[in-house]
């Protein structure tokens, strides 16, 4: 095939995807900025001010930030533990792995409903406590902010850790065992090998997982809706409230832009921070 014919062919093949992504990503972004910053009579900051003055906004910011800060490190520790346990080839490891990745395809809404059956006032957790002769607890009551937050963390931990797990397991499979075995021959302990041999080689996988999970955690919403309604406001949940319940697309757009901006900052920040040793492909 003549060499110059290749460029047009490739462009022809990727053109449809460029059109779709421009139409559904770049264009709504422009429209969204317009919605958030302009009213019927020209440019205005009224919607942004209304967003900032809303009593739910700052709690939503705080809860979302807190969720990312608590959930992400916790689930990385959890996923690493799971992956390292599987590396020991325990009995029935196929079954264990299958059960551990089941939540991979469970939606956040479904996960919220699953854990609702556990944490509801007359749900399975309080039933179990009652069977054991203990008093129940109103886990999801709006008065118990901490336990409400913890139920969301548990549900998200249950649902979204499997994503980190598959990335880490795939990463571990790509690491040759030789280094680890060599370190063992020279008398390195398990923890020394983990710290100085396995984790450094796992770094690229962990970075990808970290970026993905941070941004996905910023989007958490349906879990909290299913468990607590609006009692535990989160940013994307506020977009939903303003659009669907309060029917104000302008403020909803403003909040959506906040979420998008924070996600972009997080993505760029991570890439900057980790750039020196990052492989982009």
């Amino acid at each position, binding site marked *: 095939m003549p060499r110059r014919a290749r460029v047009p062919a490739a462009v022809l093949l*990727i053109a449809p995807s460029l059109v779709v992504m421009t139409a559904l*990503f770049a264009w709504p972004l422009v*429209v969204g900025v317009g919605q958030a910053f302009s009213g019927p009579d020209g440019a205005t900051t009224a919607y942004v001010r209304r967003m900032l003055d809303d009593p739910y906004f700052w709690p939503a910011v705080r809860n979302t930030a807190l969720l990312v800060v608590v959930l992400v490190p916790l689930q990385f520790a959890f996923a690493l533990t799971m992956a390292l346990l599987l590396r020991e080839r325990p009995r029935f490891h196929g079954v264990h792995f299958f059960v551990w990745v089941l939540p*991979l395809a469970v939606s956040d809404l479904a996960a919220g409903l699953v854990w609702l*059956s556990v944490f509801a006032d007359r749900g399975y957790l309080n039933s179990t406590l009652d*069977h054991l002769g203990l008093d129940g607890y109103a886990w999801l009551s709006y008065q118990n902010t901490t336990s409400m937050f913890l139920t969301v963390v548990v549900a998200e931990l249950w649902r979204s850790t499997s994503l980190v797990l*598959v990335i880490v397991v795939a990463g571990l499979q790509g690491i040759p065992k030789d280094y680890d075995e060599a370190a063992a021959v020279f008398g390195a302990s398990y923890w020394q090998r983990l710290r100085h041999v396995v984790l450094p080689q796992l770094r690229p996988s962990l970075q990808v997982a970290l*970026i993905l999970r941070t941004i996905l955690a910023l989007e958490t919403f349906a879990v909290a809706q299913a468990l607590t309604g609006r009692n535990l406001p989160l940013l994307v949940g506020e977009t939903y409230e303003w659009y*669907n319940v309060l029917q104000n697309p302008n403020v909803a757009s403003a909040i959506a832009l906040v979420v998008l901006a924070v996600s972009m900052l997080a993505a760029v920040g991570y890439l900057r921070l980790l750039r020196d040793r990052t492989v982009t492909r």
Partner: protein
Amino acid sequence: MSRRRRWSRAAVQAACVAITLFMGVPLYLITLAALSSRESLNRFPLPLVPTDPSTETMSTFLRSTGVTGGFLNSLTVGLGTVVLALVVGVPAGYAVARYAFRGRDTYQLSLLLIRALPIVVLSVPLARVFLDTGLYDTTYAVMLIHTALALPTTVLITAAIFVGVPREHEEAAMIFGATAPQAFLRVVAPQALPGIAAAAMFAFMLSWNEVLGATVLTLNQRTLPAQVLTTLSDSPLAYRFAGGLALVLPAVVFIAVMRRYLLNMWGTTLR
């Protein structure tokens, strides 16, 4: 030493069982709840083993307003998303795998960036766009945003698959007189088919699970998750449990079918 080893083996086994219980028990409980009668759900404490299994809760849920319609809409949107994502994504994946064109790195990087961004938050301005173009409250609107969500992953997965099909096979076909499209259809496509099927399942599952975009972009043409979400606050617990099981079941089937491809799809190709 060997005694210590035996101890640590036992600890590993115990930890695995504990984690499996944590991951598995909630699924058992939602199934138990959804298959209990409404009357037994009102009892307290709830029995932890099935005492009188009943399909009453499930069938009440399925007969509720909007549930059958939502189910059909979810199916339509999911299949439409698969078709659109493949039609647009497979050629792009092929181009990324086979051609060294200018801007390829930029293209791949922007795919990764878009994949990482919460595009669903753009559904509010998209609703404006769709209102203006008459697409609002149609299954097509939801299909389009789900396609945008699935596209980057589809391109990256299919590119990884086409890299795995030897270029020589294609060239051999062309030496024997096949045109480039013929060589693709007869030689490359059959070898790439299992992987493309995996990409299709991935797109379907993504669409089946997505709730915010579907809720914002529709009013009457709700998908199943959108229907469950919008009726959440004024529906009884039994309805919510049944809805939970209805949303979870396809996910379990999906993972069971896709076991072999999981590590490839979520693991390696994300990089």
